[in-house]
């Protein structure tokens, strides 16, 4: 029996056809992977099913029941629960309150706090997140734990249909495995799951079918057994050339960046390494290993407790963002919503922000003067947007990520730090970003790339450092490196998760 049925479902935003004539049926009690490149309409599809937005036209059916939602509460009622792509938690409130947001248990007309915390405790235990205190404020948790809370919240509805929009983009492997175990349990209970991810390697582990959308249109749906990696990529992109990481030779004489004994309690201690001109270094590590803090410290956005930073052999006395920027460094942030982009501003403004001193050294600027810098990035990075003057918030996640990167490239940096450049970015866009990194590296740009997806690192980097328990525990030269080895190195003696490798 086909439980979820869509008939010519369509959503238009003005001229933009976010989803067009989507017709398909999803079978009951299976995990359906929904894939497609950035901006192909996946989130739009999910949002309609979740009652967040209304379709322009078309029908949705659950079993024999017609679905038409005025608000998210209607969707919950129908048993459809969503974990949205952008985290939607209330940072100031407790984990338990977030899980039962809008549905706090009551005694009379008062909140039943005891029951609330007990229920939350049970749910968290069931999900395997016994480490999370239901009374803790969400703002005090790491992004990964917040994602767990988000999923716990969805679970608490005992859904018939669970929609997961890129739930793993902020998760590390161990947490991903927890999540998958959970998803399997749900499937066994008869829950239908639609699962969006850009991490194609995950699909065979979890999905029963793979459905692809391209530019707002349904392409195909195949059982997982027929979905070889090549087939998936073909569905998403039509044609995609195989990736070829250039093995480059660069002189390892004068490091462009040297880190010596850098410490920041409690995140890391005695971190030392060298980065050579033209080299791309990856930093691997589990979620919460302190990689973001390391990049922030190198970039001068936080001050280190001790340790030295040298650029081109010169000691930087008082590292600050201004000093580091002047020395040719740039930093593409991991969280485009909170710290990477000015969402209320235009794409144009976001592409210029970091490089204004270069674009307009005199302090006088104008749209005209800036335009050439904007156009070149839109072209080079293949950013899909209508008018550069439109607000950046109307772009899909992946295109927003490209804007973050493009903004820094405009500053012609000599050292660029990428924090999770691949978060929420499709394979094609990722490859475009690698290609840019390599092109720039060929001209002498040095890069540090942090990513939770270890495949990203093995695909992109020349050398990979593993940050473990606050220090660099291992170093790999990336020569036919197997992501599995890297994974093992990250996990070794990891007492924080307490899991065997």
């Amino acid at each position, binding site marked *: 029996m086909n439980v979820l049925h869509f008939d010519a479902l369509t959503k238009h935003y003005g001229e933009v056809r976010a989803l067009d004539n989507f017709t398909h049926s999803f079978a009951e009690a299976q995990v359906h992977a929904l894939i497609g490149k950035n901006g192909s309409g996946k989130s739009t599809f999910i949002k309609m099913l*979740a009652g*967040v937005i209304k379709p322009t036209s078309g029908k949705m059916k659950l079993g024999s029941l017609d679905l038409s939602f005025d*608000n*998210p*509460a209607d969707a*919950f009622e129908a048993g459809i629960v*969503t974990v*949205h792509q952008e985290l*939607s*938690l*209330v*940072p*100031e*409130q407790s984990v338990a*309150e*977030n899980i039962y*947001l*809008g*549905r*706090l248990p*009551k005694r009379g*007309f*008062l*909140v039943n*706090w005891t029951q609330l915390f007990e229920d939350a405790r049970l749910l968290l235990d069931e999900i395997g997140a016994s480490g999370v205190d239901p009374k803790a404020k969400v703002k005090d948790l790491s992004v990964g734990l917040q994602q767990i809370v988000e999923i716990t*919240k969805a679970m608490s509805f005992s859904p018939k249909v669970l929609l997961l929009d890129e739930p793993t983009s902020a998760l590390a492997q161990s947490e991903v495995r927890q999540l998958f175990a959970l998803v399997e349990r749900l499937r066994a209970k008869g829950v239908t799951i639609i699962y969006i991810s850009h991490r194609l390697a995950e699909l065979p582990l979890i999905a029963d079918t793979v459905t692809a959308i391209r530019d707002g249109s349904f392409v195909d749906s195949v059982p997982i057994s027929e979905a070889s990696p090549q087939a998936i990529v073909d569905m998403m992109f039509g044609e995609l050339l195989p990736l070829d990481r250039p093995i480059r030779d660069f002189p390892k004489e004068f490091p462009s960046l040297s880190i010596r004994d850098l410490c920041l309690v409690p995140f890391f201690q005695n971190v030392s390494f060298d980065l050579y001109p033209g080299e791309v270094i990856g930093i691997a590590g589990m979620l919460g290993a302190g990689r973001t803090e390391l990049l922030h410290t190198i970039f001068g956005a936080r001050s280190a407790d001790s340790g030295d930073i040298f650029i081109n052999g010169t000691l930087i006395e008082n590292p600050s963002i201004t000093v580091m920027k002047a020395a040719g460094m740039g930093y593409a942030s991991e969280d485009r919503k909170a710290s990477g982009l000015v969402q209320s501003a235009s794409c144009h403004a976001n592409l210029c922000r970091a490089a204004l001193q270069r674009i307009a050294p005199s302090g006088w600027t104008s749209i005209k003067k800036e335009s050439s810098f904007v156009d070149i990035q839109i072209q080079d990075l293949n950013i899909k947007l209508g008018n550069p003057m439109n607000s950046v918030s109307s772009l899909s996640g992946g295109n927003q990520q490209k804007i973050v990167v493009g903004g820094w490239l405009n500053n012609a940096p000599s050292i660029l730090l990428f924090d999770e450049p691949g978060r929420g970015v499709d394979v094609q866009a990722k490859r475009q970003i690698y290609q840019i990194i390599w092109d720039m590296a060929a001209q002498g740009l040095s890069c540090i790339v942090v990513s939770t997806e270890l495949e990203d690192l093995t695909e992109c980097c020349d050398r990979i450092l593993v940050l473990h328990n606050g220090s660099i525990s291992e170093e790999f030269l990336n020569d036919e490196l197997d992501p599995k080895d890297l994974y093992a190195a990250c996990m070794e003696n990891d007492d924080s998760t307490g899991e065997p490798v």
Partner: protein
Amino acid sequence: MNKQQLVGLSRQHSMLLILILLYIIVGFTARGFMTVDNQLNILRNIAVPGMIAFGMALVIIVGEIDLSVGSMVAVSACLTAWIVEKASGHAFEPAWYYVVLGIVTTLCFAASVGWFNGMLRHRVGVPTFISSLAMMATLAGMANMITNGSAIEAFPSWYYIIGSGRFWGIPVPVYLLVVAFICTFILANFTTFGRAVYSVGGNMEAARLSGINVWRTKTICMVIVAVFAATGGIIYSSLINSGNPTIARGMELQVISAVIIGGVSLFGGRGSIWGAFIGVLFLGVLINAMTLWGFNPYAQQVVSGALILGAVFINFYIDRK
């Protein structure tokens, strides 16, 4: 209790500590400050700004603001007096019939203004900052029009009880303040509505996606503060025994200062009713102390400005640590 807990406690209650400090200083320097009578005076003086501050705390926590509360106090006093005057002409007795009519009508009027602000925010997206600013002028004008610029004196003789009466030696407004505090405190901390207020103020989109009726929540907060302001107007009308359009000018800023001094975040989602109370009490003690000290009025402005700044400074400074 170890050192860390102590620091944590002082952080949370830094404003309380500042208030205690103020009490000590004023107690030693201002004659008559530490008498029971004067303490009751302070409580009575903060009764009206206090209850409005509780409502305002909810409004600010839910992510909105209401600048029309001062005018609402004035128009409510006038409206009540006007209705009592008109009704008493028609001689349906006893007197409390028309006093109740006046009070109920006024509270309904206030509620509908709050509801209107909420609707404008919801349906049209007009920020409450600006709609309530316009409402401030409109209501002040209405107060003047109702009374034709002068005070309406029409209350029966026992009406003074609401604003100036005492039971067991404690002024009636103090009871009202306590009731308002308890109600808002319970509302904010122990009801689903109260938790929704925090959720909506903390992350509106998340609240919406969880099926919380964001607009109802916001609108109810706007209604609550308007009703408290109207109650304040009724208390004042009793205190001065007339409906006078000139009262409560600038009270909105006083109330908002108090709420922020009490640690409610202007960005929404954060703060407490208890904090709002501390903030109001701080300002009340300050005003009382300056009157007792008998400062030159010009110096009072400077000193109170500086002290507010100082208190907020210390408060935020400790929070930073």
